[in-house]
């Protein structure tokens, strides 16, 4: 099961990269669909022993729900021309992901004996903190944050990935880097209505 989930996730990321790179929404709907179908074939079809998705998986490993939701939203945005995630939701998500990454990654490099990644194997404190964040997101209607946490928790509980660490279902370095870049770009640009995912200014 983990291979199928992981494989699908990396394929979705590849499709999002193709769609966003080509800025598919510039083209007629028929062309968008045809390009995405061709891209899906190219991504998932084996090239020798492995497919392009498998090569991506070799580098990235299995992708977090944050990355998958963002990749899915980017695909939908390029296919339909419609914004899927509200800008305020995105901003909240990016701040949360960047904060979590700042907490997780430096310590994971072994700077101290404290290892926040170990909390992901089953810590009441960690899960409670995550619950509070999720309830706050629900209360303030930051729906994408709540959706990602709920999905990550459920996928973690069924053991869909190779990992048994909740962190791996929540965030990954790609999501962290993307969040950081978008936040920095937003800070440089100042407040504005241009933060829709996949929609250029």
């Amino acid at each position: 099961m983990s291979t199928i989930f992981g494989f699908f996730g990396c394929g979705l990321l590849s499709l999002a990269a193709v769609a966003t790179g080509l800025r598919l929404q510039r083209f007629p709907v028929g062309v968008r669909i045809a390009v995405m179908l061709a891209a899906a074939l190219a991504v998932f079809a084996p090239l020798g022993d492995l497919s392009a998705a498998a090569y991506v998986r070799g580098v990235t490993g299995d992708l977090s729900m944050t990355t998958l939701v963002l990749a899915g939203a980017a695909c939908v945005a390029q296919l339909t021309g419609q914004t899927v995630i509200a800008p305020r939701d995105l901003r909240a998500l990016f701040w949360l992901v960047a904060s979590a990454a700042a907490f997780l990654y430096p310590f994971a490099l072994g700077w101290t004996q404290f290892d926040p990644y170990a909390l992901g194997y089953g810590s009441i404190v960690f899960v409670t903190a995550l619950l509070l964040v999720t309830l706050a997101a629900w209360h303030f209607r930051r729906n994408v944050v709540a959706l990602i946490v709920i999905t990550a928790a459920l996928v973690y509980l069924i053991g869909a990935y190779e990992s048994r660490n909740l962190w791996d279902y929540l965030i990954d370095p790609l999501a962290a880097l993307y969040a950081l870049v978008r936040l920095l770009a937003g800070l440089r640009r100042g407040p504005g209505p241009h933060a829709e995912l996949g929609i250029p200014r």
Partner: protein
Amino acid sequence: MSQLRLASLVAVALAFGGLYYRILVAPSPGGFAPPQAAPRAVSSTTPLYRPQLLPNSAERSVHSATAAEISGGRLRAFWYGGSREGAADVAIYTSIYSSVEGTWSPERAVVTREAAQRHLQRHLRKLGNPVVGRDRNGRLLLFFVSVSVGGWAGSAINLMVSEDEGGTWSAPRRLIASPFFNISTLVKGSPLQFADGTIGLPVYHEMLGKFGELLRLDAEGHAIRKTRLSSGRSSLQPVIVPRSETEAVGFMRYAGNPPNRVLMVRTTDGGATWTPPVKTSLPNPNAAVGGVLLANGPLLLALNNAEENRESLSLASSTDFGDTWRIAHEFDGDSSSLHPPMREYSYPWIMQDGAGDVHLLYTWGRTRIKHVRFNRAWLAGRR
């Protein structure tokens, strides 16, 4: 409250109810499985010391041997070999040692890069260190390093399982042990068993930092817990030697500033927490060590007994579980009559078999794996 809002709140409750339930029903981790109190058979009282090179008919470069005792008092060894370290043709090889005949079988490949890549559905660039151990059900567990991108700092660990003493193997499974795309986790030290049936796997990380950790794996080989053995940028390749359910000592290769010494950590709570690493009196030229606690002692450490090079390999012995050491023997080095082209003796793996004999495997000049078998009677004569 709209129905959608209510449904999402129910979803939050369900998801977190599941997370809390999983934590609350998880068994508390047990201590180390009690080490073997005495050998199953009595080792000969006649001193035995038998060195030999393992067969190597195909590969120009071999490294990082590991071994486990299998049925019939035999040993099954593994190592990696290829045209050079890190080459795409590197595979994991195995050979069987018959303790009766005192000979090794011709080597055969257990896993190649292409086969591992196909099973893991990931691009792999090269294979590296294997280590072998057993779980509570008697299955052989073969862990090996693979790299998809970059050098050894980009490593991940894979696991194959054999239920027939290494004759056939399951498809490899990827272990997840790092949040950075799961890269930079390697193995060198012997796996160990915990009393609760989980497996302890000493691992280390090499990306930016160099530090050791102890992973706990469930019966399916998933990492379910981990404990940091050290931090910073100078300790790697941990080897852990339990003495009781609660006590163990760990040794690590040192990659920091002089003086270059073997690092040591201890635990007294079954591996839940570890003391900060301290430098022992034993030198270490940034090279792996191997350790074993013989039934009824002493503690043995195979190491390069120098601060700057790997041109000799020695045996250190401790009767106080690592507090003090003496060098008992030099296996290879200046006194050796036969030298390989590259004078490097490294990556020792040391273990005791059920008959009480001790087996040491190490890289001999990067071109061969060398095996030394000795017994207590020989060791007693080294005092």
